């Protein structure tokens, strides 16, 4: 066995091992502490878990790619809210009045387009100015949120379309629509990152941008494409979620960027770029939702949930450093 193989395996499997631990803990604790007669591992409850993971999970796939790239996107929560507003509001626009329920795909397309455009703006600025993505998207986070408030002031933007709600509540082949969206996005992101030139380039750029440039990779357009991707996914997440709720508060999606980044980091993606896996991110997303759900199941309050997730995040990063031999060498040097 080559040196580092074991630690590599441990690293990749850690998040799934953690999920199994959570499942066992909540199943046992639930027997004593929960008022519910149903087991925590009830099939319906696990299906709900996947469904409830979708809003954060879909965005997290885009964030994984952007972070492997060595960038970050803090504007996803604001993009999410703005896309949601476009989705719900466009259904009431007079120009689409003749379409009936045919307006639904049009509204969805407009919302997704909004996400792509916002992402493109981020990517273009990062590409052309060379300013760090953290700063650019921090500005975008504030700016896009400003747009959200300009759109409808302090009021929520609402449009309840029951056809759309029924569509979103459907369960083809037993899985919720939101779950399908999450799984399809995960598979596509995995294919892109492991089977395409674009994916390999993403790792190369994140690992060593200079070397990537010297190798002839067009770094700027590559990054812009990834930002458009995460913009699209933030909008897709909004489409999936708001189809089922029909009203968006102007402060919806606040802190989503932090939950998404937490999930991605829990899944083992490096903040410095160059390493990470889409599948492990899915694990990170599920682990967080499982904690929220499980702690609720045994009767802990929201503050406790946040505290526990924070502690676990720090513990994971510490473990990761211990397991990562390369990291240790870097520290000694």
């Amino acid at each position, binding site marked *: 066995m080559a040196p580092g193989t074991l630690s590599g395996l441990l690293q990749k499997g850690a998040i799934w091992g953690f999920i199994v631990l959570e499942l066992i803990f909540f199943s046992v604790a639930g027997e*004593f*502490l*929960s*008022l*519910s*007669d*149903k087991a925590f591992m*009830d099939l*319906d*409850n696990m299906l*709900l878990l996947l*469904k*409830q993971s979708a*809003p954060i999970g879909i965005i997290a796939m885009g964030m994984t790619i952007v972070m492997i790239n060595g960038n970050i996107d803090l504007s996803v929560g604001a993009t999410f809210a703005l896309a949601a507003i476009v989705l719900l509001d466009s259904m009431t626009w007079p120009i689409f009045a003749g379409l009936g329920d045919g307006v639904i795909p049009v509204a969805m397309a407009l919302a997704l387009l909004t996400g792509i455009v916002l992402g493109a703006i981020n990517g273009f600025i990062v590409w052309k100015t060379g300013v760090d993505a953290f700063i650019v998207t921090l500005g975008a986070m504030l700016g896009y949120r400003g747009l959200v*408030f300009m759109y409808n*002031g*302090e*009021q*929520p933007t*609402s449009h*309840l379309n029951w056809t759309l*709600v029924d569509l*979103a*509540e459907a369960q083809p082949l037993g899985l919720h629509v939101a779950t399908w969206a999450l799984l399809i996005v995960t598979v596509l992101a995995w294919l892109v990152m492991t089977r395409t030139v674009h994916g390999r380039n993403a790792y190369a750029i994140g690992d060593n941008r200079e070397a990537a440039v010297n190798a002839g990779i067009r770094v700027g357009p590559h990054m812009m494409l990834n930002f458009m991707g995460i913009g699209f996914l933030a909008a897709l997440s909004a489409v999936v*979620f*708001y189809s*089922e*709720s*029909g*009203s*968006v*508060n*102007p*402060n*919806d999606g606040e802190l989503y960027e932090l939950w998404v980044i937490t999930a991605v980091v829990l899944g083992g993606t490096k903040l410095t770029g160059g390493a990470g896996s889409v599948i492990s991110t899915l694990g990170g997303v599920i682990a967080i939702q499982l904690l*929220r*759900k499980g702690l*609720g*199941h*045994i*009767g802990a*309050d*929201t*503050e406790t949930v*946040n505290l526990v997730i924070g502690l676990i995040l720090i513990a994971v990063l510490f473990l990761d450093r211990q397991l990562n031999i390369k990291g240790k060498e870097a520290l000694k040097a």
Partner: protein
Amino acid sequence: MTLRKTFAATTAAAALVCAGAAGAETMRIGITQNNVGVDSYQTTYEKAFIAAAEANPDVEVVVLDAGGDVARQIAQMEDLIQQEVDAIIIWPTNGEAVIPAVRKASQADIPVIVTNSNIAEAGFDFVASFSGPDNITQGSRSAEIMCDRFKALGIENEARVVQISGQPGYTTAIERAKGFEDRLPEVCPNVTLVETQPGDWNREKSQQVMEAFLVKYDDIDGVYAGDDNMGVGALNAAKAAGRAGDITFVGATNFAVGYEAMAAGEYWGSIYQSPVDDAEAALQTAIDVLNDEDVPFLNYFDTPKITQDNMGEFTKPVF
């Protein structure tokens, strides 16, 4: 957690005792609250709710908090439906976004009781009852308090008012603002409402909003805040600018800080609303619904006016 177990055990014991006499069955009621940590009203509400449930041997409660996040609240609704509770009490984070989730509960034959701030009309078909304050009436009562004060001061024909509203998108905030904005021109047609800005139910935010108002306007005679927490924030800003004496402060949901400021003569009036009454009314409404009793659809509890003149009739709020 041990408390919960003991509580469950006592409940079980009590249920056994009752079983012979009345055949009482334990009701399992789930509640998903808006945002418990955000202010003392919601914190006191949760405490009062749990206390009321513990005092009733026929009731077991699952207490959840959405932390202000719509997505989390919808997930909690789904969880409660999945756990097959007997009734769900919801304090909506968004009066419209939760409607489909409420419909799901009603389709699963679980009665839903909305507490504190109502959901939008599109969802009324899926709700058993609303228990809470009448926020429109509260807003109009605040307008009346403000107008009466202006008349007493003799400035009802020239007064200029600013409004600091609650958290955007929140039904309580919208309804109180609407009640105030509709009633004020009726009782005091010559008073101008110059500007409205959100204070997010937050004292610091409200203080900043008021600081900006004070810079922008040289003449402010009245401030209406969506609750006392924000009202006191505005008062602090005015005191720092040395202009508090010229301004009539009226709030809603009388908080202890507001009550104290009224006692000190700095704050004029508010609406007396007890979170304990609110929580107990919600639980009682749920129990009545489960017992098939006749419950009005809009089950309001009274929230009277309180000003420096009549504050002696009220005890200081505990929150």
